[in-house]
C-alpha cells in the first residue's frame, strides 16, 4: 500500500471516531423527539407547557408541566445566586491572590468537589441539611427549594470556579503591569482591570454552571421534595423536570400518553440546556478580548 493511501485511510479512521459522538447525539435527539412528539396529538402544546396541573395517573390525566418548569427554574436561579459569588470569588483568589502552595491545594480540593457523585451530595442534603432546615425553621419538611438550591450550588461551584479561573489566567500580563505602573494597588487592579478583561469568560462560566444545575437529576430527586405545585415560599417543596422523569419513568407503560409526556419534558430540558450553551458560546465569541494590543 502506498504511503498516500495509508495517510488517507488514517485520516478517515480518525474522522470516524470524531463522528461517533455526533452520531450518538443525533440518535438521542431523534429518539427523544420520536417518543415525545406524539403526545401533542392528544394534548395541545399550550396545555402542556402552561397547564397548571401535573396529574399523569388520574383519569382523565392532566399533563401541565408549568409547575415543574417553575420548580426547575427557581432552584436553578437560587443555586446560581449562591454559586456565582462563591465560584467567581474563589477563582479570583486562586488566580490572583493565593500563594503558590495554597493555590495548588485549593485547586485540587475544588476538583475533588467536582468529582463527588451527585447521589452523595443528595444524601448529604437528605440526612444533614433537611433535618437542620426542618428544625431551625420549624417546617413540615426540610426537602424543599432552599435545600435543593444549596446542594445544586455546591455542584455548580467547581464549574464556575475553574472556567472563571481560566479566563482570569488568560488576561495578558501587560494589562496588569500597566495598572501597577500607574500606581494601582492589587485590589484596584483586580477589580478595575483583570475582572473586566475576563468578563466574557466569567459569563460563559456562569451559563455553563446554570446548564449544569438545570439538568441535574439525582439531587433534585432526593432533596427538592417532589410536590408538583407552584411554590409560594422558598421553604416549599417543588418537583423539577428531571426529578419527574426519573421518578415516574419506571412505572409508565411503554407508549402511553404519560410515557410520551415524560419524553416531551426531556425535549423541553434539552432545549433549555441547548439555549444555555448557545448563550454561553455567543457571549464568549462576541465579547472576546482582543488580548494584547494589536499592531
Amino acid at each position, binding site marked *: 500500500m502506498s504511503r498516500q493511501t495509508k495517510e488517507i485511510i488514517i485520516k478517515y479512521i480518525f474522522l470516524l471516531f470524531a463522528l461517533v459522538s455526533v452520531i450518538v447525539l443525533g440518535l438521542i435527539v431523534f429518539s427523544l423527539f420520536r417518543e415525545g412528539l406524539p403526545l401533542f396529538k392528544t394534548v395541545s402544546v399550550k396545555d402542556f407547557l402552561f397547564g397548571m396541573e401535573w396529574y399523569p395517573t388520574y383519569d382523565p390525566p392532566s399533563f401541565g408541566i408549568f409547575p415543574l418548569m417553575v420548580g426547575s427554574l427557581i432552584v436553578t436561579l437560587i443555586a446560581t445566586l449562591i454559586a456565582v459569588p462563591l465560584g467567581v470569588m474563589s477563582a479570583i483568589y486562586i488566580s490572583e491572590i493565593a500563594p503558590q502552595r495554597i493555590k495548588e491545594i485549593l485547586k485540587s480540593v475544588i476538583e475533588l468537589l467536582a468529582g463527588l457523585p451527585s447521589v452523595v451530595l443528595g444524601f448529604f442534603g437528605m440526612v444533614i441539611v433537611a433535618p437542620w432546615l426542618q428544625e431551625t425553621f420549624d417546617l413540615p419538611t426540610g426537602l424543599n427549594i432552599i435545600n435543593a438550591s444549596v446542594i445544586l450550588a455546591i455542584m455548580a461551584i467547581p464549574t464556575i470556579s475553574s472556567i472563571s479561573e481560566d479566563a482570569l489566567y488568560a488576561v*495578558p500580563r501587560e*494589562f496588569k*503591569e500597566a495598572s501597577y505602573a500607574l*500606581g494601582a494597588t492589587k485590589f484596584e487592579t483586580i477589580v478595575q482591570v483583570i475582572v473586566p478583561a475576563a468578563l466574557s469568560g466569567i459569563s460563559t462560566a456562569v451559563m455553563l454552571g446554570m446548564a449544569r444545575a438545570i439538568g441535574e437529576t439525582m439531587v433534585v430527586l432526593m432533596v427538592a421534595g417532589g410536590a408538583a405545585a407552584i411554590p409560594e415560599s422558598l421553604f416549599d417543596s417543588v418537583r423539577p423536570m428531571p426529578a419527574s422523569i426519573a421518578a415516574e419513568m419506571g412505572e409508565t407503560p411503554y407508549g402511553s400518553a404519560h410515557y410520551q409526556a415524560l419524553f416531551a419534558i426531556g425535549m423541553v430540558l434539552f432545549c433549555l440546556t441547548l439555549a444555555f450553551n448557545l448563550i454561553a458560546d455567543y457571549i464568549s465569541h462576541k465579547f472576546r478580548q482582543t488580548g494584547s494590543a494589536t499592531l
Partner: protein
Amino acid sequence: MESNTIISIRGVNFYYGTVRALTDISMKFRKNKVTALIGPSGCGKSTLLRLLNRMNDLIDGTKVEGEILFEDKNIYAPDVDPVEIRRKIGMVFQKPNPFPKTIYNNISYGPNLNGVSSRDMDALVEQSLKQAVLWDEVKDILNKSAMNLSGGQQQRLCIARALAMKPDILLMDEPTSALDPISTAKIEELIEELKDNYTIIIVTHNMQQAARVSDETAFFYLGNLIEYNKTEKIFTKPEVKQTEDYITGRFG
C-alpha cells in the same frame, strides 16, 4: 550639579533567585534630561529601569541590595509604599498595552485612583492627550475602544496615560521597538518636547535612537555599568574599548 540629581543609585546589586543580574551599580540621573540606557540583550538595562519604580517587586524571588534615592529617600526602605513611588514615576512599556477600555477611560484610570474629581477629568484627559500629541487624532472618538487605534497611536496613548498622573519621571522600556519608522519618529519628537517638564529615562536597543534623543547615555554589559557620560561623548569618544566595540557594531 548635586541639585540637578533626581535619582541616585548607590551600590545596587540585583538578583533573580540566585542569578545576579546587576553588579554594584552606582549612578545619578539628572533632572529634566533624557538618559538612555543601552547595551546588548541581557545586560541588565531593563532590569535597572524596572528597579526605579519597583516593578521588579511583582516578580517572585527577586532581591535588591544597595540604595536607590529619590527625593532624598531610599525607595527600597521598608516604610516606603511602592504604590506611592509608581504614582510619581511613570512607565511606558515595550509593547503598547492600553487597557481594553475606551480611550477616555484609559487616560482617566490612573487619576481616578488618585482621587481626581470627574469635574476636572475632562480637562486633564485633554491636556494629557495634547501633551502626547494624540488629541487631534482621537478627540472625536474618546468613547471608542483604545484597541481600535494603530500601534503607534496606542503607544502615544500609553504615554498620555502615564503623563496624566503628572509624574516626576517617565521611564520608557524600548518604547518604539514594536513600532514602524513613522510612529517611531513621532515618539522621538514627543520625547524631545517632554524633556522640558519631565525627566526621561529610556532603554533602547537602537543606538541611533539613543544618539538622537538622549542627553546622557549609560552603557551596560553583563550586569555592569561600563561607561556613563554625555551622549555626544559616548558616541564620538568613548573611553572604554567595550563601549566603542558596541556602538560601532562590532558585537551585541
